[in-house]
């Protein structure tokens, strides 16, 4: 087995809102291996981005981690001191955000921003760090890095900005790279280039990549393992081939069925009826019960645990009998 990059277990994030406390992430566990990609898949609001931010230590003040651990290299990122956490931000774990335009500082030269990891963690002199920044730009395929290093973010295209952001994240060869919807804001052709870049860097730096996305095609293409999230919980996880070939959770199946394959022009697209439950009023039992075609009595009273049976890991009371 390949080396473990990061082990998240029982991660729980709660939001303190004026209407009360809600649980946005509920006991999420997963393991990301070096040189592999784990996809966290789910709809907006399922808690996948919140999971990413909690792992990266970047939660907004209203959100707090109430339970769980994030192990990287024998250290629990949630338990270490603030100072130690800052030291680990970059060399141990880094994150790539979705919207590269707002994620790059508009008033600082890109070279300055790219040099920052070296300046902060290695106390590198400015001139040397600048040379490293140019090297990074070349590394991620930005043309003419020597002249572009002094340009500002707005002078780059969307795809180039995303490359800059990725370059910044891999500057110190992190063990774990979290990519939070890295291609959602991009054109399809640029998307493919960025995903290819991520795959290349993953291999070169032997990083464990955690890819946060709602895009089934991206998961199928890029990930080795997938964890499907619903309402703050992982409902199904496993190797991508297995899960996509033969989904066991009704939600996973619903997602896959909503992808138009050979659909006839003019025919209705299949979709999952209803919407995810309001976080303020998650029903007892299974959170998917209201939308589930297979719902039974037990689903309304008992929360299905995430269990591995016959090699498949699913949180569903009826999963076993539903294999196609």
């Amino acid at each position, binding site marked *: 087995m390949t080396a473990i990059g990061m082990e998240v277990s029982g991660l729980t994030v709660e939001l303190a809102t004026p209407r009360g406390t809600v649980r946005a992430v509920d006991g999420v566990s997963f393991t990301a291996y070096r040189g592999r990609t784990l996809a966290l898949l789910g709809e907006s609001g399922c808690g996948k981005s919140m999971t990413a931010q909690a792992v*990266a*230590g*970047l939660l*907004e003040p209203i959100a707090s981690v109430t339970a769980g651990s994030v192990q990287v290299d024998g250290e629990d990122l949630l338990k270490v001191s603030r100072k130690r956490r*800052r*030291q*680990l*931000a*970059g060399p141990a774990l*880094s*994150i790539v*955000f979705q*919207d590269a335009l*707002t*994620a*790059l*500082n*508009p*008033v*600082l030269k890109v070279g300055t921003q790219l040099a*920052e*990891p070296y300046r*902060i*963690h290695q106390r590198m002199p400015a001139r040397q760090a600048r040379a490293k920044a140019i090297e990074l730009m070349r590394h991620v395929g930005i043309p003419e890095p020597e002249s572009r290093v002094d340009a*500002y973010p*707005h002078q780059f295209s969307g795809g180039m900005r995303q490359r800059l*952001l990725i370059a*910044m*994240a891999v*500057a110190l060869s992190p063990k774990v790279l979290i990519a939070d919807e890295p291609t959602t804001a991009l054109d399809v052709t640029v998307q493919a280039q960025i995903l290819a870049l991520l795959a290349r860097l993953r291999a070169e730096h032997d990083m464990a990549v955690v890819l946060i996305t709602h895009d089934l095609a991206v998961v199928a293409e890029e990930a080795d393992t997938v964890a499907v999230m619903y309402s703050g919980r992982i409902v199904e996880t496993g190797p991508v081939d297995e899960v996509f070939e033969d989904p066991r959770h009704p939600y996973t199946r619903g997602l896959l069925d909503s992808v138009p394959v050979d659909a006839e022009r003019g025919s209705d697209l299949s979709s999952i009826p209803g919407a995810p439950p309001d976080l303020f009023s998650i029903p007892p039992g299974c959170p998917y019960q209201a939308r589930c075609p297979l719902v039974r009595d037990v689903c309304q009273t008992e929360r299905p645990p995430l269990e591995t049976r016959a090699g498949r890991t699913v949180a569903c009371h009826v999963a076993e009998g539903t294999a196609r």
Partner: protein
Amino acid sequence: MLTFLRRRTLTSLPPLLAVVLGVFVLARLTGDPAALYLPENATAQAREQFSAAHGFDQPIWSQLIDYLAQVTRLDFGTSLRTGEPAAVMALRAFPATLQLAVVTMLLACAVATAVGCWAALRPNGLGDRISSLMSMTAASVPDFWLAILGIWVFSIMLGVLPTSGVDAGGLSWVLPIAVLMLRPAGVLTQVVRGAMIAALGSPYVKVARSKGAGERRVVVRHALKNAAPPALTVAGDLAVGLINGAVVVESIFGWPGIGKLMIDSILQRDFAVLQAAVAITAISIFVLNIGIDLGYALLDSRVRQKVGAAA
């Protein structure tokens, strides 16, 4: 850059002309200078002579044309009071106002940046609430009242500061600056706080933290530079107000600046000096505004590009 300056100078001319015209007409509505400068029992003939000597007997439009012709030769006329050239008197008074405004603004900016950033680090925390209350109070207190209160407490009751004038050296500066800076400091603190809260909540600050940047680097390098433009706009406005509106404070503290000169000239119907004083104030405000625009360009490359493209 030069094109930018030239264009800004040209567009500044019409409003400048309007200011000069406005003051010229308004000043003459305050009454006849002859009534003030001649004894009460002066004969009608003496009054006519006085008016003729200073051109006040001409129709107002004819006076105006003569005046504008003079101004184009940079001649702002002579003072009725002292017989000195009006421009010389205005230029002599201006540095006192400028010094006061510069020191006040620098202090106000320093206080506002420090307190505003500190408050923005923990929005709605205790420190934020206290600083908000204090800055709002500071922004709302009328300066004439505060000036008089200050004189009463520090000059009369405690006797540690001079009541007015500039003869006591550094101590003379304390009360005028304290009174003048309170409002700018209060307003700016609120602006810096708001802009910093926005900047600190932005994705690029998260990215900076994800690179392991410490609090100081996040605040100073990443957030503050982004929060500066809105603060600069307001600071510019406040600086204009200081140059323009030191009238009250200068009068109360006997500060020999342009504001006091204006008030004295109005009371004395010394039109030429008033007009020169207003003109110099207006010019300095235009210069200040151009400076603010250049400041934006320095802070933000996107503006720099636009300025370059427009030029």
